[in-house]
């Protein structure tokens, strides 16, 4: 090498080194994320499994033997599966009909119907169980007061099927309406041009194309039903299910190993279905999203079926609204079924006993939300845009939590963080950690969406127009990721406000949660108070929607806040 190229070489090395100075930062970031995921995702899982396998400090299958031999656990397992299958099937059918009606038939008031379906997704998970007592209980408005049915037993299988189907079919609806919208109506038209009758078109084209979506919907509802905690706790009656048994085993019996064993049993199907969905069903999707065809196919069903479908949708929406209205009404009525005088006393009581709880709940959700979303977005950024060893493991660990039932998460956290040096039980940190790591997949999802918004080109074009990375971040990246951030934050906030199954293991006298308070009040037959608290919770969520919306516009108007000319 000549002297010149030597000096050039060193000069370039120096520049590369300068840029490389960023790399240790990235390394530290990656390492700390992996550490956190290991500690708050894998370690609780490991502890749960360990406790169940080593109940007395050494390896012993006694826990599983007991669970699989004792009648009451066997019943709980088969009940859970039976309930899951029935609810998933019913829910998917309703979801499909609803989605089909809303995507394929034109009729007024569609937005209203969509809103009605979204409502169960954003409200506390057991709200239907609460109103089911009002409507279908012994003093129920429908059963006793209107229909005069005596001794109708809402507690048990029947009641659970009703409330779970109503509260869970919306998830299926979201999946299926997305898929039905993505099916090119031209395909249906084409099938008809080829001579297929309407019904034939439906069975040979529409239905097979929607099949992967139906599967996904079925599995998702099945898992939801399996992991549901609030509804069976309120309406379970003599119908024990796995998720409640896990809690009962801990709270009632103080039997940690057996609780752990039940949590593991709950975890096995959900995690395997998660893997199944992620790696098998995804490949089988036939849907080609063209994105161009906005025309709606209005040809595939006959007029009569149209009318029936619309009627069906109205019926379902009406049922949902009745459930919500009854909660609202119940919160103002002295004693449902006995004393119908209007009263504010439930609200006065709710604020007297529950004010601290409301504050705690809102505070924790408010702190957890930005952390969760930012953490998720950082992971998404690292996984999508960077390469480092252990990347796939990180991605899997980060989304794994979504497939773990809340009961197992809460249980795992409780037994993992109750001694030095990880003494977190009873503090706000255990609740925060639970929120952050349980809902970080939402942040990751939104991070992915945001990254697709902010293409490399856009960042670079800002750079070579003269913007430093700080300015680019402030004026381009930030406003562009704001919508994904806000929608993820909204969703996370709602989840933090309404989650019950994990939180019930982690709340303490110092840090309480509204859902557990509502549940306790329901248990103690303080129904009016529970309804009032539920209304307050729903209102907080609706207010938060408005606040987040305001944040959205805030993000947009301040684009040039930093570099504007005055």
């Amino acid at each position, binding site marked *: 090498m000549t002297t010149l190229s030597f000096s050039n070489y060193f000069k370039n090395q120096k520049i590369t080194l300068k840029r490389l100075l960023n790399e240790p930062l990235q390394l530290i970031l990656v390492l700390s994320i992996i550490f956190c995921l290991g500690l708050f995702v894998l370690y609780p899982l490991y502890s749960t499994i360990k406790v169940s396998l080593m109940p007395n400090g050494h390896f012993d299958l006694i826990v599983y033997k007991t669970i699989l031999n004792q009648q009451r656990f066997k019943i709980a397992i088969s009940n859970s599966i039976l309930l899951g299958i029935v609810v998933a099937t019913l829910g998917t059918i309703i979801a499909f009909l609803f989605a089909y009606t809303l995507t394929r038939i034109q009729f007024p008031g569609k937005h209203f119907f969509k809103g009605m379906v979204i409502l169960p997704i954003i409200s506390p998970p057991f709200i239907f169980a609460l109103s089911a007592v009002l409507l279908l209980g012994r003093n129920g408005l429908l059963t006793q007061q209107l229909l005069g049915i005596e001794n109708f037993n809402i507690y048990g299988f029947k009641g659970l099927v009703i409330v779970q189907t109503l509260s869970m079919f919306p998830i299926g609806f979201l999946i299926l309406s997305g898929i039905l919208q993505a099916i090119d109506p031209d395909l249906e038209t084409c099938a008809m041009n080829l001579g297929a009758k309407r019904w034939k078109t439906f069975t040979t084209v529409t239905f097979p194309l929607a099949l992967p979506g139906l599967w996904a919907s079925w599995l998702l509802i099945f898992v939801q039903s399996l992991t549901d905690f609030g509804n069976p706790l309120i309406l379970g009656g003599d119908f024990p299910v796995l998720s409640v048994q896990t809690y009962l085993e801990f709270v009632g019996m103080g*039997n940690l190993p057996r609780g752990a064993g039940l949590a593991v049993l709950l975890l096995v199907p959900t995690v395997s279905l998660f893997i199944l969905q992620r790696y098998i069903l995804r490949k089988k999707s036939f849907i080609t999203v063209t994105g161009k065809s906005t025309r709606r196919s209005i040809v595939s069903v006959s007029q009569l079926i149209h009318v029936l479908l619309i009627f069906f949708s109205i019926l379902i929406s009406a049922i949902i609204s009745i459930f919500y209205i009854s909660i609202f009404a119940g919160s103002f009525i002295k004693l449902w079924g006995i004393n119908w005088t209007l009263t504010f006393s439930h609200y006065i009581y709710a604020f007297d006993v529950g004010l601290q709880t409301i504050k705690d709940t809102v505070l924790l959700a408010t702190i957890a939300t930005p952390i969760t979303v930012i953490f998720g977005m950082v992971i998404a950024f690292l996984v999508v845009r960077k390469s480092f060893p252990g990347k796939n493991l990180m991605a899997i660990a980060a989304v794994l939590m979504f497939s773990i039932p809340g009961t197992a998460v809460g249980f795992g956290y409780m037994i993992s963080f109750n001694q030095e040096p990880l003494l977190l039980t009873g503090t706000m940190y255990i609740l925060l950690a639970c929120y952050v790591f349980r809902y970080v997949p939402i942040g990751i999802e939104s991070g992915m969406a945001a990254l697709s918004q902010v293409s490399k080109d856009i960042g670079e074009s800002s750079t070579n127009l003269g913007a430093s990375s700080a300015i680019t971040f402030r004026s381009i990246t930030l406003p562009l990721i704001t919508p994904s951030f806000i929608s993820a934050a909204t969703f996370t906030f709602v989840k933090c406000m309404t989650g019950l199954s994990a939180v019930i293991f982690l709340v*303490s*006298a110092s840090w309480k949660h509204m859902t557990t308070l509502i549940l306790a009040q329901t248990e103690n037959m303080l129904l009016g108070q529970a309804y009032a608290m539920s209304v307050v919770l729903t209102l907080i969520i609706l207010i938060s929607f408005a606040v987040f919306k305001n944040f959205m516009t805030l993000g947009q108007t301040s684009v040039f806040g930093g570099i504007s000319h005055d």
Partner: protein
Amino acid sequence: MRLKHTIFFITLSLVFLLLMFDSVLARSKRVTAYTSLHEPVARAVFNQFEKESGLKVFFVRLSTGEAVSKLDAERLNPQVSIWFGGVGIGHIRAKNKGLSVANPTTATKHLEPKYKDKDHHWAGIYAAPLVFEYNTIMLKRYALPIPVSWRDLTKSEYKGHIQMANPGFSGTAYNILTTIVEIFGETSAFKYIQALNRNIPMYSRSGSAPGKRAAIGEVTIAIGYAHDAVKFISDGFPLAIQFPAEGTGYEIAAVSLIKNGPKDETENAKKLYNWAFGKSAAKVYVSQSFAVPFVNVPLAKGAIPISEVKTVEQDDEWAAKNRSRLVEKWHNVVTSSQSE
């Protein structure tokens, strides 16, 4: 536009800071408590204490069984300094598990020895016998006779009409279970439970819920503590009580101080503990829960002192020690007969 956003932002931050301050900082003049009293009763009791002491009570309502499990789970980092109310058997279990701490005090001097722990770990605030509570209207509607004995409850005509809580969660229900064992002897007791189970459609988590359900007619007959029923009757619900002919069990609602509770609260918790056995607390128990306290205060109308009730020979120490075994057995009997 800009101004509007600034105002919005500042308001939001202020609200948030206020929340923070309230939840995190204002924690010196306070007592954190688990309580197994009814939530409305607890609210009244603690409001009265707050008024008198100037301290603030933060409480969570848990059933007796839940409270013990929770305290056990938090053993290394207790979150509360006092457990207020709840069936005495639970307090004995807490003592046996090393969860409570001895607190010798003159405040419990007036109590009979059987109503307090000899090592000063817990002491009773009131006693309450178990009774059958039935909804008079419902009983008439279904043309059912009044059940007068434990035996009666297993009659097939009561199928679907009886309710009690789950002894796993509820101290009340465990009290029922041990009473049955004490009356019938363990072997016959579980045969009895199997028969009783056929008439019970569901077991609640909370011990007081069945009584309330009976009051509003959600169920016809409940097994629970007398004072709860008396309160409902005085509130005008169509409820009546019946003491079982074979005799009945009773609870000693008790209070314990928690070992290694939050440090800055220890003195405050002791204040609450001592106050719990005094007259002004007793007045609240009387007015709110119609209980019969161990202090001499005017009783609520219809309240029944434990001395006037035919009670069984009750060994709470034995009941506390055998809880896991009995509850486990109960679970097995109840669930396996459900599958028939």
